[in-house]
């Protein structure tokens, strides 16, 4: 969906763990930006229907980018900056009736 532009300023690389999988991301960006830049499309399930949900406002006001960060649920991914070894969970443990979300989208 999104990719870091070739002329982006050089940045250190961190490792975050997303649903148990190690992902290299640039330092200094939000969790949402890191996930999107790494190819994520779906960040979780909408709480009522369980349908796949992705970010909307990316400025901390819509609460559509909620993920679990270091054990704390329902953090706005767009409002938290990545840290080395940060553990992120996208897929809620108890999904509602809808099919499980594949955060990386089809063909990833």
């Amino acid at each position: 969906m999104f990719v870091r532009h070739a002329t982006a300023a050089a940045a250190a690389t961190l490792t975050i763990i997303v649903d148990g999988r190690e992902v290299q991301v640039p330092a200094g960006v939000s969790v949402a930006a890191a996930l999107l830049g790494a190819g994520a499309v779906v960040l979780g399930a909408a709480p009522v229907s369980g349908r796949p949900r992705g970010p909307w406002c990316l400025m901390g006001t819509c609460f559509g980018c909620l993920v679990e960060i270091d054990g704390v649920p329902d953090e706005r991914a767009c409002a938290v900056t990545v840290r080395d070894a940060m553990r992120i969970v996208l897929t809620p443990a108890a999904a509602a009736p809808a099919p499980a979300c594949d955060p990386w989208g089809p063909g990833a």
Partner: protein
Amino acid sequence: MRAAIAARRHGADVLVLDERAAPGGQIWRDVETPAFGDARTLGDDYAHGASLVAEFRSCGAQYRPGTLVWDVSRDRVLRIAGDPGAHSVEATRIVVASGAIERPFPVPGWTLPGVVAAGGAQALLKSAALVPAGPVVLAGTGALLLLLAWQYLRLGVPLAAVLETTPRGSAWRSAARLPGALAAGGYVVKGLRMLHAIRSAGVMHLRGVQALRALGERRLERVEYRAQGRDAAIDAQLLLLHQGVVPDVNLTMALGCAHDWDAGQLCLRPRTDAWGNTDIEGVALAGDGAGIAGAACAGLAGELSGLEAAHRLGRIGRAERDRLAAAPRAALARSLRVRPFLEALHRPRDDDRVPRGDDVIVCRCEEVRAGTVRAEIARGAADPNAIKSRTRCGMGPCQGRYCGLTVTEMIAAARGMAQDAVGYFRIRPPIKPIPLADLLALDRGEAPPEVALPGTRAQAPVQR
């Protein structure tokens, strides 16, 4: 920032509480640490924010980033979260600059992964140098949409289409307001330059687009629309929607400020006087949070509210305040002259604000559809709070930011009422979710607030 700088210039003690991690708000987001290395990559308007931020940093105001103000009481006690040292601050004078948010854009499929607010995509651009990875459709209306298209084209990002919902010919219909726009300086030229860039790049650019819908199974796959009398579709995995920004009124609503419906801006805005004062003693507003006028006007309004604060705090007399305010006030009046033109040119369509289809999601958080809302209106619900309690619309974490205007307008349209008469959701603190620990700490008086900051009175711990 301008309010702080102006107040500091006259010796006021100023504390700035910023929810974000660095100054700049949304317009100049991350301008101190530009994601492209050179802020000018995203245009001069963005790059110029750096000097303002630098001036703010050195003006002597205390700056607390990462601090959420989740409530303000009428006696000017601010409840804050995210600051390890304090849970509340009492102030003699408050200037609220809560800014603007995207207008809701309730079209079918707008909650699909892959449908993102254009402002959000621009935030990703500024903060992380992220650009679309594949074919992207920009749809809606507004200067931000065109600016983003221009920024992407400069970076070599291919655009699948720009679908403007602005009715064709609206530029001509807005022509009566053009003299004002030209007098405001720069806006029309900038707009034309962006349009030229889009044209030169050969991007498909349609106006008068209707019936936008986003389709896909678990993510966006296709965008359908109607233009020039024909139905069409574009395969895309990213759709950036935008139809203007509106004031984020949740804090001013929780405070109990009066709000009025602005017919030109098609939104609610808090009532202020020429200095930004609200109807609550000691509380003023500046910037887009008080009504949409753009970055230049926000800074000028900030300066005026800073001068007013200095005056009310006894730092400068009335005559001095008025003398210093003359230039910014004149500049503000001049810049405001473009608004009627822009508001007419980029007026969001009725059908894009009040969805016709029953399946369209109105409340993203609670996934309440338009048909459900309409059914309750038909059953007699005549105000947004009745809709809220019957359908849960507006009860989610965004607290009505992305459905409130839709609900108000749906009731107004269905009942033939004025939006002012319909009203808005009742907004209560906390204006954003906060951890329970923050509430408990407040009650127990834990982590006693640090020694009173000059010009504020630290809240005394509750004795039990």
